[in-house]
């Protein structure tokens, strides 16, 4: 007879979900499922609105990644207008997305994950948060706060506000950057670089062994992400690349508008989150990962000196392209470093201050795709419109969806390793949650849920009776 353990909701992720661990008669884990339990159906809300409204409308999907939705939506709009965005508009979009990567990765690492990593998986749950971390590592938290604030301020100076800026539009952006704001952003980068360098050093010293790094699962999968035409790390423009677990390139140079050539979507009755998979391998064998780990595993190099050195060291520690879920944290820190270096390059480009930031046109195509690298991974906006630019169909594939199969695999590996003969405690369950948290999933985006519920863990016996129940508020 089987029994089940439920973890609901998963904490310290955006939105909420539930984990069910199925135990066999001996109390060992036979299956694990990450359920996303709410549906808000944003694609349907988009139908009937105009393409010009879409960046502002879809930005409201999420309070963490509004910038990513705005930029992906604007890119889909570029395709429908069939315009070439002015160079300055592209640079400004690039700068904003780099600021977004910094702030979102800082949030994920310093506020959400560092408490587990530095205080311990089984430390007092009441203290295992950013406030508890501040008591022990005040300097680290202080630096993390300032780093995230820098990313947020960058977004605000570009877009007028830090959350839901109505700034990127089909054809470009709606206002140029002034010199004072450019200089302010540039002046803060040295401190931000110092912060991420120190944090990378701390991370590498703290998690030096293979056992520690395999804690959250280590399994092969494919990886997908944008790369530049020469194979460099890319996040705004570029082409799609898919590699296998050994780094062998399976798909390269794919026009992002043809994403359906490689990505198909499955669904399961037990979750509202779709299960994208690599079409050529089928479901579920076509599991792939996106996000920081995916991007590091698909790119050849960053093209900036410090992050390239870090990438080389990272690949040396992982014996090539790592499949360890834990390395999402490591990759996230490297991407902060790369983002800051690339921000420096963009800020030195004099074209950045040009007032020519937007191309204007009417409807010149009835379909458009915008693919963009959000902090959590590849974000796809695909629209069809009528002759007036009114949306008749929309499909959104968000980063968390791409990672759905891999998140389920991660929690299965953790649960099988830690739960034996039905014995578990809060610390072990927090590790299971940590497997999800490493992906930094945004459930608000993926199915658009908000809110928080108490955490409930149940062990259900063969007759359906609750044998054990843990609740945390």
């Amino acid at each position, binding site marked *: 007879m089987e029994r089940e353990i439920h973890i609901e909701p998963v904490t310290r992720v955006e939105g909420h979900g539930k984990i069910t661990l199925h135990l066999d008669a001996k109390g060992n884990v036979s299956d694990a499922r990450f359920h996303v339990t709410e549906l808000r159906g944003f694609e349907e809300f988009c139908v009937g609105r105009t393409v010009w409204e879409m960046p502002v409308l879809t930005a409201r999907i999420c*309070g963490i990644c509004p910038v990513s939705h705005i930029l992906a939506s604007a890119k889909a709009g570029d395709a429908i207008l069939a315009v070439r965005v002015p160079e300055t508009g592209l640079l400004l979009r690039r700068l904003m997305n780099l600021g977004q990567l910094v702030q979102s990765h800082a949030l994920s690492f310093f506020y959400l994950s560092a408490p587990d990593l530095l205080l311990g998986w089984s430390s007092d749950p009441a203290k295992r*948060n*950013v*406030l508890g971390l*501040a008591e022990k590592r*005040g300097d680290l*938290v*202080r630096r993390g706060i*300032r780093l995230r604030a820098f990313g947020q301020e960058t977004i605000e100076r570009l877009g007028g506000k830090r959350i839901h800026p109505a700034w990127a539009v089909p054809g470009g952006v709606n206002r140029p950057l002034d010199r004072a704001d450019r200089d302010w952003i540039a002046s803060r980068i040295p401190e931000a670089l110092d912060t991420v360098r120190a944090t990378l050093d701390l991370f590498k010293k703290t998690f030096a062994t293979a056992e520690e790094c395999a804690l959250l699962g280590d399994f092969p999968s494919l990886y997908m992400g944008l790369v530049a035409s020469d194979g460099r790390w890319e996040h705004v423009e570029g082409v799609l690349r898919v590699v296998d677990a050994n780094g062998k390139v399976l798909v390269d140079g794919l026009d992002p508008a043809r994403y359906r050539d490689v990505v198909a979507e499955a669904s399961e009755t037990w979750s509202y989150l779709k299960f994208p998979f690599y079409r050529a391998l089928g479901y579920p064998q076509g599991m792939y990962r996106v996000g920081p780990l995916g991007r590091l595993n698909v790119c050849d190099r960053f093209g900036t000196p410090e992050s390239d050195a870090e990438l080389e060291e990272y690949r040396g520690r992982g014996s090539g392209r790592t499949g360890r879920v834990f390395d999402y944290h490591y990759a996230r820190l490297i991407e902060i470093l790369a983002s800051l270096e690339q921000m420096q390059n963009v800020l030195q480009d004099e074209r950045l201050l040009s007032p020519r930031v937007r191309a204007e046109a009417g409807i010149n195509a009835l379909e458009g795709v915008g693919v963009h690298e959000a902090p959590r991974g590849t974000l796809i906006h695909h629209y069809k419109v009528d002759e007036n630019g009114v949306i008749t169909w929309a499909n959104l594939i968000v980063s968390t969806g791409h990672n759905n199969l891999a998140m389920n695999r991660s929690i299965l590996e953790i649960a099988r390793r830690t739960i034996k003969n039905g014995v578990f405690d809060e610390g072990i369950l927090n590790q299971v949650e940590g497997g999800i948290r490493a992906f930094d999933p945004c459930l608000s985006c993926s199915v658009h849920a908000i809110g928080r519920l108490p955490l409930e863990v149940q062990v259900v016996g063969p007759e359906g009776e609750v044998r054990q129940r843990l609740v945390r508020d």
Partner: protein
Amino acid sequence: MDLVIGIGNPLRRDDGIGPRVAGALEGSAFASVCAVQELVPELALRLREARRVLFIDAEVNGPNVRLGLVEDSPSGLGHGFAPRDLVGLSREAFGEVPEAWTLCVPGVDFGYGEGLSDRAASFLPRAIDAAARWLLERT
């Protein structure tokens, strides 16, 4: 300089009363005023620059407008921050904590939509008056 933070989402009816009250104080010579949908750790950077801080927030089915000192113990946070969590974080990370107060304003309707319920709207003048007095009486 004092800091006034209105907390809430104006698209969730009475949840927007904190930003509404804070907005009435904008332009004050005595305070820096901001509105946020929720508290976030970065606000600790603003707290450390403030002499005093007033958090203005809606209270579900509260009996009346209430002004009080922020409790000096964290709530055991998870997904969200309470004022006492932000104050605690500011203390631990930056070592400096302003005198912190909350102004709670009753709300009954937190559904989707703009504008306040009749009950919340009835408390709005009293809440603005209490916030203005807080600013003036303690400067």
